[in-house]
């Protein structure tokens, strides 16, 4: 199969892939929850902590200078990787969730009011629903969802109708669904939303590890993602926003770094990106995030994407032959995510029994409860999700483990 040489080349970069669980070789298919880290990231973080850690910005000494340059280098790498016109538009956050909350609380509190609508889709992760619900409740606005088709694609008719019907102030949607794998036509959605006078926020949490991202080509106003799903460290992610919009937004968190001058008579705020980065940032995280991006670019995002496309096709084939298995999410364009259910059998049982065979999958609602409810899947799904290092052979092992679990449960 195409690209099957990719894992051979890179698996040795991931020490965890050598381990066993329950005495069986680990087959890690929970990448959409969090990807494993290459040595470049692990060792880079270690090197930082062993050799040039210091608090950054405003430091006159050499270590502070080295740490600042490396951290700001991480920011520049993120900016370049997503085609941001300017690194100052990249705000480091604690992750995607934190980034959406930043927009909802800062932009939302300043711009949403009684009767306004925030449009989302029924395939959103809770991270792109709950922050909007909270700010809408606070200001008297409302969150409205766009429907999703049975096959896991977005209902474009409903999308356009909703733009028309609600004239939303904000339209927020995933670039790729973490439960279905569906890749949304984000550029088209952004154009339509902008034409309807709305701002757009794209949740790229599942796009960053799998797809080439260009925020200019997408045409969104905000883009968020998280490092840990893209071979990077935990505790860091980013918000990209159009400069003029970010400039106009009030700060959200207060503290050090985000100020220009503090006094009890009045405090003035710093310029971008610092205005939104209060306190000591996650320095080792910013540096290691940059290393994760270097690693992905070194391998080639398009190479990873092609490899994962072929894995998805392979997995669909391998799993569909198992009696009773129904694949949830069959959009033509998918990232490396395959969800499935077996009628009459609880996904938790399947996941537990696959774990016993060394295969790590995720079961449940995957933080997309409204989607599960919409699709009538109250117990959620069993989800296998892939990364650059996943092999067809691992999918075979997972399929066999699933078959054995099914045999035990029937």
């Amino acid at each position, binding site marked *: 199969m195409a690209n099957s040489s990719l894992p051979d080349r890179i698996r040795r970069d991931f020490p965890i892939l050598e381990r066993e669980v*329950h*005495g069986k070789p680990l087959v890690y298919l929970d990448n959409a929850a969090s990807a494993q880290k290459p040595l470049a990231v692990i060792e880079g973080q270690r090197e930082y902590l062993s050799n040039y850690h210091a608090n950054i910005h405003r430091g006159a000494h050499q270590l502070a200078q080295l740490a600042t340059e490396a951290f700001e280098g991480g920011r520049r790498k993120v900016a370049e990787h997503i085609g941001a016109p300017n690194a100052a538009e990249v705000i480091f956050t604690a992750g995607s969730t934190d980034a959406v909350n930043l927009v909802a609380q800062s932009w939302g509190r300043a711009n949403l009011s009684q009767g306004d609508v925030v449009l989302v889709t029924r395939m959103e992760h809770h991270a792109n629903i709950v922050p909007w619900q909270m700010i809408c409740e606070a200001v008297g606005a409302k969150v409205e969802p766009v429907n999703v088709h049975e096959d896991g694609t977005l209902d474009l008719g409903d999308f356009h109708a909703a733009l028309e019907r609600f004239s939303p102030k904000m339209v927020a949607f995933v670039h790729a669904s973490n439960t279905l794998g569906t890749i949304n036509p984000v550029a088209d959605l952004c154009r339509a939303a902008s034409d309807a006078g709305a701002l757009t926020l794209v949740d790229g949490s599942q796009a960053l590890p799998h797809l080439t991202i260009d925020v200019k080509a997408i045409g969104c106003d905000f883009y968020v993602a998280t490092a840990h799903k893209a071979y990077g460290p935990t505790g860091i992610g980013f918000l990209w926003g159009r400069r003029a919009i970010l400039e106009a937004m009030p700060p959200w968190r207060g503290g050090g770094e985000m100020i220009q001058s503090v006094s009890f008579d009045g405090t003035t705020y710093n310029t971008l990106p610092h205005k939104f980065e209060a306190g000591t940032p996650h320095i080792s995280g910013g540096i290691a995030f940059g290393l994760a991006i270097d690693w992905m670019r070194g391998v080639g995002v398009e190479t990873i994407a092609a490899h994962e496309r072929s894995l998805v096709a392979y997995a669909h084939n391998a799993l569909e032959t198992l009696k009773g298995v129904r694949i949830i999410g069959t959009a033509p364009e998918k990232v490396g995510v395959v969800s499935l259910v077996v009628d009459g059998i*609880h*996904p*938790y*049982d399947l996941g*537990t*029994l696959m774990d*016993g*065979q060394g295969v790590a999958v995720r*079961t*449940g609602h995957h933080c997309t409860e409204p989607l599960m409810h919409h699709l009538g899947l109250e*117990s*959620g799904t069993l989800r296998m999700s892939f990364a650059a290092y996943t092999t067809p052979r691992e999918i075979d092992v997972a399929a066999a483990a699933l078959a*054995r679990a099914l045999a*035990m*449960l029937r």
Partner: protein
Amino acid sequence: MAENHPLIEARQQEVIADFAVFDDWMDKYEHLIELGKDIPTIDEARKTDSHLIKGCQSRVWLAADSAADGNVHFTADSDAIITKGLVGLMVQVLSDAPARAIAEADLHFLDAIGLHQHLSPTRSNGLASMVQQMRLYAAALAARQA
């Protein structure tokens, strides 16, 4: 924790003996699934929200009744069969025992049979919450009896 009530200790030993024949992980789960299929479960009519243990992936229902002899009688169920097997083991060990004995039970058997991880409060199968509920119920009853 105090020493176990002899009844509860004896039942735990029984379960441990039961599982002693399996050293393979999968065999153990096979057995758990069989248990899950056999175990007497809560009345369908009582599978309501008020008997549901919240916040877990597999749903768990638990009902507790105090018997005339001062013992507590538990019935339970789950929509996942492995969870049901685990839930069943808990009922087998704790049901129809004196309230105080339940409240103070040292449930070492899960460790001994290698299923301890399921009792972790971080596990999303609801077993930990269920055991907590069982203890709370029994403790409240014991307090009333005292």
